[in-house]
């Protein structure tokens, strides 16, 4: 049974210390590591945002979506197609535009896919996601299968004053960090709100939620669209970072990889998917440097993950330091035994 939102194996004090420490490290890191790793960390944080977005639907909504890469990539294409040939587009116009376009597309795809359940939902989201992939792959929109360059990164200028320079790797790092932080704050508020609780209730027992009068379809559709819009922010920034978008950005292999990140980090906690994203991307870097056929190893690791660590890395943490964790299962049983005995 899935655990309630916010519940973790790790005690809340340890959790807080870890949070503050990682925040401090993330503020200092870009000044001490080489540029390559600053870029890599920005990329990992954007993937983290995408994984956090997906987990709203998968972890809290109980819906396995395989089209989130399509939302991610679509936002990148919105930036690419609205960027003028000379000079950068304004981030204050193109980012909201990308979010609106993705929200509209997600509302249609979500409304159609949510008519189905379980395996059908997975297949329907996969098919609609691939529809967007083929839209950019097979037609001339955005350079067809070759993709399209964004020659000038978007500008963040208010009244002639440049807030940040997105072409600067360190500036970009902090923009990504800011976006990540805002995403975490927003999601924390959302899953703790009545909306988040109702969404989790619908996941745990749909019939009961329906009979209590919750608009389950509306809740799920809202979660789906919100999650898609957050994915759009990640996709927009990702396109801005590399100055290039290609149909592969929308392909379902990316959606599946992000699902691996979510499961690796653990579905039941807010920050889990972020941890999963950083862990998987770090792992990929190591595998790429060690093996020519690194994808084979990645595949084997994913298969092993399914069987050995179905609860993700959190489970590993609980195995390594059981005395630190609250070990909720055993204590729960003990309490129950006392109560009955």
């Amino acid at each position, binding site marked *: 049974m899935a655990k309630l939102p916010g519940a973790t194996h790790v005690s809340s004090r340890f959790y807080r210390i870890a949070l503050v420490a990682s925040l401090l490290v993330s503020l200092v890191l870009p000044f001490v590591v080489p540029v390559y790793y600053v870029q890599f960390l920005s990329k990992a944080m954007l993937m983290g945002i995408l994984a956090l977005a997906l987990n709203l639907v*998968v972890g809290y909504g109980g819906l*396995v979506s*395989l089209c989130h890469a399509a939302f991610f990539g679509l936002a990148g294409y919105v930036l690419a197609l609205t960027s003028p040939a000379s000079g950068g587009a304004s981030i204050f116009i193109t980012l909201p535009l990308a979010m609106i376009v993705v929200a509209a597309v997600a509302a249609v795809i979500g409304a*159609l*896919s949510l*008519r*189905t*359940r*379980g*395996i*059908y939902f*997975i*297949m*329907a989201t*996969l*098919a*609609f996601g*691939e*529809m967007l992939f*083929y*839209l950019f792959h*097979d*037609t001339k929109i955005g350079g067809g299968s070759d993709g399209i360059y964004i020659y000038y990164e978007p500008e963040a200028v208010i009244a002639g004053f440049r807030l940040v320079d997105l072409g600067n790797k360190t500036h970009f790092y902090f923009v990504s960090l800011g976006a990540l932080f805002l995403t975490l704050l927003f999601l924390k508020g959302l899953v703790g709100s009545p909306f988040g609780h109702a969404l989790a209730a619908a996941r745990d027992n749909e019939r009961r939620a329906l009979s209590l009068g919750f608009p389950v379809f509306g809740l799920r559709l809202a979660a789906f669209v919100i999650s898609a819009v957050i994915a759009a922010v990640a996709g927009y920034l990702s396109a801005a970072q590399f100055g290039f978008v290609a149909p592969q950005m929308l*392909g*379902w*292999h990316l959606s*599946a*990889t992000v*699902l*691996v990140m979510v*499961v690796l980090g653990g*579905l039941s906690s807010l920050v889990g998917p972020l941890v999963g994203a950083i862990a998987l991307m770090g792992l990929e870097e190591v595998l790429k440097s060690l093996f020519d*056929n690194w*994808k*084979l190893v*990645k*595949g*084997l*690791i*994913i*298969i092993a*993950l*399914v*069987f050995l660590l*179905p609860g993700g890395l959190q489970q590993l943490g609980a195995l390594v330091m059981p005395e630190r964790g609250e070990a909720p299962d055993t204590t729960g049983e003990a309490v129950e035994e006392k109560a009955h005995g």
Partner: protein
Amino acid sequence: MNAATFAVQLLNGVQYGLVLFLVASGLSLVFGILGVINLAHGAFYMLGAYLAYWLSAYTGNFLVALIGGTAIAFVIGLVLEEVFVKRMIGRDHLAQVLLSFGFILVIDESRQILFGKDVHSVPPPDWLKGSIQLTELLSYPIYRLALCVFCLIVAAIIFFVIQKTRLGMIIRAGAENRDMTRALGISFDRLNRYVFAGGIALAALGGILVAPVSTVFPGMGDGMLILSFVVVVLGGIGSVAGAAIGALLIGLTDTFGKVFFPQVSSILIYVLMAGILLWRPNGLLGKQGH
């Protein structure tokens, strides 16, 4: 468009739909009986095509490739079911999605190691080479006709097994209500293994059969996987008849879409799917009201 061109396009659409039916019915049966979602189905289609290329280049005989490739896929299916998929039954769909995604990566890289990433073509068997002259300008390859006939034979065998045999009765009952069938004393362990291996073999068979009429390339499995999913969404999970209707609908929509609306042809099948989802969310022949 005159009658002869129309007939050629109709044949192309039906032939496409028949191959799609072989692949998608395998996928649908695995869903229906095991309750397991297999994203690696397209990878086995791709693997079948590469096996066809390898075996026919090695032996010079397409029939050997046809039988050998299908048999290899069947054995791989048996092994995968025994080692991995068996443990997936009853686990959530997310775990099944991840497992089969892992399969895809392993199969893709294995193909890379064994066969490389080159694009290949496979010659049809000598006795099926050549074309039939329809009009002065139009001709139709004999292999494509033979492909239609062969697919129809396989489809007839599938329908016979499903509708007329005891095994088929169990399969239909299992797809309808697995728990009730088990309660009646039917053991699913062996059935699961053969259905999974059979499904994989059908995917590979589809890949082998199209190898002589299209090119063999690494990404061919992905497109087939998505189309098979659309077929299953259209037809309904576990319904072979639904898969047949869905596959022919897609085959004809895609072929005639390319003729009449070349600009939007790649989107048409998804519009079709959206329409069916609005009308019957569980597919044309799927169980409704769940």
